[in-house]
């Protein structure tokens, strides 16, 4: 059953009670929350995801977002993320409860799921090949990812590239795409049909909103992809679209430094990482116009050997 098939009052009842069981990519979640904006965020953004009865017995991550206990909550409404009883973060203003759930879920995956090499990068797929987009904040990574995801590329993830240690294949985790500041309006204009939820202001990342993942990406969330490219996007105002080959060794070092768990995996992290680098072409990618950028990506995909 999909989440959107649950009547809203039933969703709210489960969420405020024992929690909602939901599957996202390789992980099953049990989410519990009494905060209305969390219920609203889930209803708006996770409609296509599979939910099961409350009695579903096993979940990988048991999480909740609730008002903190104690007096402080009365003075200033806040929300606390909890992972099975432990609170890894300080409470945030109540207005940020839904983004906090998203960040908390990313934290669960990046600190636990060591069956993957987890790189801090967006990843999209076309014709079976994945383009990995690692980049520091402000580089236009999420704008580009959202643009590609609504233009024929399959969204695998906007934050967490999960590379299986057993197969070297990339496992999708197509949760909502986090958009920050100016990129919210850029995507609203670029793709008026896409749903973007209410923005939360004054978060530590600025203004944040989430785009609903395309239905097709969610439907195919168990379909893995082979690594094809590593592209470092950089949005430069007025710059022509430009693809510049990049050293594999340098790219490897960058990926290792930007992996959440490279050092945890020991020698196996090196093996998985070098194996990945051997299969991909590496580029620096500069752009200013989103349409042109997507055209350049499409060209890459059609030039690939198995296209």
């Amino acid at each position, binding site marked *: 059953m999909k989440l959107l098939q649950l009547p809203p009052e039933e969703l709210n009842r489960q969420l405020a009670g024992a929690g909602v069981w939901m599957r996202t990519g390789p992980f099953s979640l049990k989410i519990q929350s009494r905060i209305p904006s969390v219920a609203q965020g889930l209803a708006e953004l996770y409609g296509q995801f599979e939910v099961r009865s409350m009695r579903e017995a*096993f979940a990988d991550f048991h999480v909740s977002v609730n008002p903190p206990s104690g007096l402080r909550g009365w003075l200033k409404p806040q929300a606390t993320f909890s992972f*099975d009883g432990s*609170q*890894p*973060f*300080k409470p945030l203003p109540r207005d940020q409860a839904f983004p906090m759930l998203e960040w908390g879920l990313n*934290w669960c995956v990046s600190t636990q799921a060591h*069956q993957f090499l987890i790189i801090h990068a967006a990843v999209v797929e076309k014709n079976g090949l994945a383009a990995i987009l690692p980049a520091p904040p402000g580089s236009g990574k999420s704008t580009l990812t959202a643009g590609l995801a609504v233009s024929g590329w399959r969204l695998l993830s906007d934050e967490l590239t999960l590379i299986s240690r057993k197969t070297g294949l990339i496992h999708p985790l197509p949760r909502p795409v986090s958009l920050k500041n100016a990129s919210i309006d850029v995507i609203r204009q670029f793709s008026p049909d896409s749903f973007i939820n209410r923005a939360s202001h004054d978060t*530590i990342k600025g203004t944040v909103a989430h785009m609903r993942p395309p239905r097709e990406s969610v439907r195919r969330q168990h379909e893995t992809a082979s690594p094809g490219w590593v592209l470092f996007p950089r949005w430069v105002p007025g710059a022509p679209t430009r693809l510049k080959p990049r050293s594999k060794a340098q790219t490897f070092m960058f990926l290792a430094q930007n992996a959440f768990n490279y050092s*945890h995996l020991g020698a196996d992290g090196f093996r998985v990482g070098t194996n990945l680098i051997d299969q991909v072409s590496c580029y620096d990618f500069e752009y200013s116009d989103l349409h042109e950028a997507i055209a350049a990506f499409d060209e890459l995909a059609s030039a690939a050997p198995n296209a």
Partner: protein
Amino acid sequence: MMSPTRNDNLLARILRTPDSITRFSMSEWDTLVRQARAAGLLARLSHRLRQHDLSRQIPEAIRWHFEAADTLAAKQRTAVIWEIRQLRAALSDIDSPLIVLKGAAYVAAGLPAADGRLFNDIDILIPRQALQRAESSLMLAGWHATGLSEYDKRYYRRWMHEIPPLQHIDRDTIVDVHHAILPDTARYHPDSSKLRSHAVPVEGLPGVYVLGAEDRILHSATHLFHDGELPHGLRDLTDLDLLLRDAAQSEGFWNRLIARADELQLSRPLFYALRYAHHILETPVPEAVLVSLDANAPNRMTLALMDRIFSRVLAPAHASCEDRYTPAARFAAFVRAHWLRMPAHLLIPHLFHKAFISPYLNSPPKAA
């Protein structure tokens, strides 16, 4: 006698009788994985199931939790050995042996208690007179005191048997430098020089020592029954279980253990350690040993109370193991430990500070 909570403690049940997982429902698996994670015992549980050839009984969808824990444990094991070498190098100008304690010692000595052990820090023992030199040498090598309030730092230096935890500036690893195994203010204070005189060199790590087999067990017992906060109580109890099972293979071990406990004034913590290891994990302890330690038992009322407290604080720190008395039991264990560590005129102001001042000064990091 043990406990209303024992039935809900699936983890302890599986550690005692691993075979029962073959009849587990998915909801029992859910509880087991959550308890084991909360107790810091996921990797140890994984190791135990592997030893009993039960890994294939873990449902496919759940297996990754165990594999991920194995990955982390293997990485930590390598890292601990490497870190011990760094400590040895940093402390090369200290002309006394470097003694590693607890988890790091189990790894260094290659004991079964190292299997599936997860670490929060590395503990070392340095003679008190070398402490100041050791701290400045460690600072030069990148270890600094961090993350504590000024009150806590003063408290450590004035009253404790260790200096504030030192964190490495690049690697974030934490080292706890002890000069004794109990504070000076404690009811009992075993002579550290006696411990040092029985230390054993570690093969393959020149200049690194671990405590003797009996002393390791006594130290683990002392730590468990004198430490106020026991987030990893069950993990430490499984350490004791593994240490005891391993050491008991050597001829005359139990007599040596009892004599040594007496010599170091640690018979009471040994009594508790054997009692709870035996009850909770079915650690084999000869009847004669339990009888001879009975002289060190507290009176019956106290013991009944202690059973109620420790059946709770030695359960995994997870909601599924808690009942309405758990918070009271934790608080009682905290007060008891401090009562044993310092006299009342020091204890009461300290607890006041911890209860009413510290909570407003320390809190966890912001979400990123």
